[in-house]
């Protein structure tokens, strides 16, 4: 140190006395090192990583995947149709009704003794002698599809309505939101009952859609399309109002971007996470509503099963055959819980500020 300061010009006693000879200019390589930043993570990957760290969310994903696989595979593997009354060697079997899980009817036992293989009734049979396992899986399929389609309906209507209201703002927003308030205050179950009565009278029963779904189902979809999108619309509107305040929207206007461009490139990408999360949370609520309505006898049309209607018909034999209620009920709980937990996980991973 002293040796260094020795041969330096004495400038100011207070100066640091730094010897310029000990420094050399940084090379281009060294300069570039300053610019190195941590690895780039996209918003989506970051969110997925967080989601995969959430054990509840992972368990829900596994549950949902298992249920979907079951829906896809079971009809291929099990040789019974969901609306097919079991016959043994082409003849009707009176004793095949209300079997317990893995129990065989007398005729079936005889057939097995004769060397035939008969596929076991994993969940027994119902009061009409139909394989209950196949019916429960079919019911899960119906319930899931209803939940999914109702949610998509809610998604489309809610997002379009909410974005128009939020984007236009001002008087348009005011009027559109008052309409939402009115719809919000309508009692949904009452509307479904009224609608299914009205639709029963007015819909053409030969219409293929009506034939396939039954008027009750059409009523449920109509109600979802009419009533259930309001919370989605409110949420999307709030999100857009907030996004609109950001200066990058103003910047897009300043560069000449039209409304369509701004909505596509800025508004939708910035509220997509809220939309996905809300949809994920909408699915279980739709499944639950459908199950509830089917349980009340206002859901799917026989012989089509849904988890709710299966639970409903199981009520009569509750004392003697409790498993007929337990299987669909457990499946409803599993599906609804899994979707709810997945929605919560998505929310925590992609939009932590939404958590209340």
């Amino acid at each position, binding site marked *: 140190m002293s040796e260094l300061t020795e041969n330096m010009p004495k400038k100011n006693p207070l100066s640091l006395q730094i010897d310029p000879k000990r420094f050399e200019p940084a090379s281009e390589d060294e300069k570039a090192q300053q610019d190195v930043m941590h690895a780039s993570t*996209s918003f989506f990957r970051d969110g997925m990583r967080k989601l995969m760290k959430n054990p509840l969310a992972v368990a829900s994903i596994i549950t949902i995947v298992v249920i979907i696989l079951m829906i896809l595979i079971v009809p291929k593997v099990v040789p019974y149709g969901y609306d097919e009354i079991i016959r043994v060697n082409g003849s009707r079997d009176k004793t095949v009704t209300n079997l317990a899980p893995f129990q065989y009817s007398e005729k079936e036992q005889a057939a097995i003794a004769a060397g035939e293989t008969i596929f076991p009734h994993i969940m027994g049979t119902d009061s009409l002698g139909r394989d209950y396992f196949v019916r429960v899986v079919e019911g899960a399929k119906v319930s899931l599809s209803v939940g999914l389609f109702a949610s998509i309906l809610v998604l489309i209507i809610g997002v379009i309505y909410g974005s128009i209201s939020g984007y236009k703002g001002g008087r348009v927003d005011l009027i559109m939101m008052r309409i939402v308030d009115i719809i919000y205050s309508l009692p949904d179950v009452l509307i479904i009952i009224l609608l299914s009565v009205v639709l029963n009278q007015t819909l053409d029963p030969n219409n293929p859609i009506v034939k396939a779904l039954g008027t009750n189902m059409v009523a449920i979809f109509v109600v979802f399309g009419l009533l259930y999108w309001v919370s989605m619309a409110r949420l999307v509107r709030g999100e857009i109002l907030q996004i609109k305040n950001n*200066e990058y929207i*103003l910047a897009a206007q*300043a560069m000449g971007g039209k409304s369509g461009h701004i909505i596509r490139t800025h508004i939708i*990408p910035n509220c997509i996470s809220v939309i996905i999360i809300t949809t994920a949370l909408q699915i279980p609520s739709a499944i639950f509503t459908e199950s509830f309505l089917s349980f009340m006898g206002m859901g799917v049309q026989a012989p089509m099963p849904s988890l709710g209607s299966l639970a409903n018909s199981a009520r009569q034999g509750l004392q003697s055959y409790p498993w007929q209620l337990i299987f669909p009920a457990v499946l409803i709980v599993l599906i609804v819980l899994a979707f709810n937990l997945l929605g919560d996980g998505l929310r925590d991973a992609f939009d932590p500020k939404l958590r209340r």
Partner: protein
Amino acid sequence: MSETNKSEYLVEVNHLKEYFPIRTGWGKTTMLKAVDDVSFAIKPGETLGLVGESGCGKTTVGRTLLHLYKPTDGEIRFNGELVTSKNVHKFRKDMQMVFQDPYSSLDPRMTVEDIIGEPLDVHKLYSTKAERHQKVLDLMSLVGLNAEHATRYIHEFSGGQRQRIGIARALAVNPKFIVCDEPVSALDVSIQAQVINMFEELREKLGVAYLFIAHDLLIVHHISDRIAVMYLGHMVEMAEADELNDNPIHPYTLSLLSAVPVPDPEKARANKRIILEGDVPSPLNMPSGCPFRTRCRFATEQCAKERPALTDRGNGHMVACWNK
């Protein structure tokens, strides 16, 4: 361009007004006069500095000028042609803006490449993806950003880098005129100088004209050809940069200049700081007559009665004051 009223000015602003309706409860609204009767003009390649304290309406002038807010009154001309809400789209390519806040003016869900490429998308300024990529890289190197930053998201950048991204975006369409809204006030001093120098370089290279907004007179004096001083939505003085610095006339400009630190201690001691009394009046409740009179040492009865107009005191030095 059949119009014959082509002027020497690139941008002309005449009697521009921007009032914001403010709800004051129970259906009542009052007008907040953010900008009240402001006129100025900028030649091609020229820089007009706009100074004033926070809330005096600088940003509003810039945004209204670009029709981001619909002007309440007054006219804006670009290349001699009147700009209206209907035809503003054809001027968008020529007038750009660098925003005050480098955080909220860049979309957090877009990569740098997409942010800088957005104006190219809007105006369809490329034919192939590769051409777009090349243009973005050129712009990035123009403002001193690394090519490898192109795929990154905004949250990975510092304030200075973000401001450069904002500048590259404004330059993407080759504008003739850029409103720079306090482009350096969010940055720390060492980076401020870099960015200011960059603006100067770009002006030399590309010949763009700036409306350079700031509240720091030192910076504005450094970069501007002319300076306009605003107070409470009004323009109180406008002159050549050196002229304004050496011979300020309006009492408000005098007080602003007295607050600027002077490097020479001798001069600094001689230069008595003029401290303004009282607060800035609320723009909702403007004083009658001259907006500055409530804090002015020279205020007379006339100041309360009538608002002074900007008058030329020779050499294009415009001042709005009755007494000076």
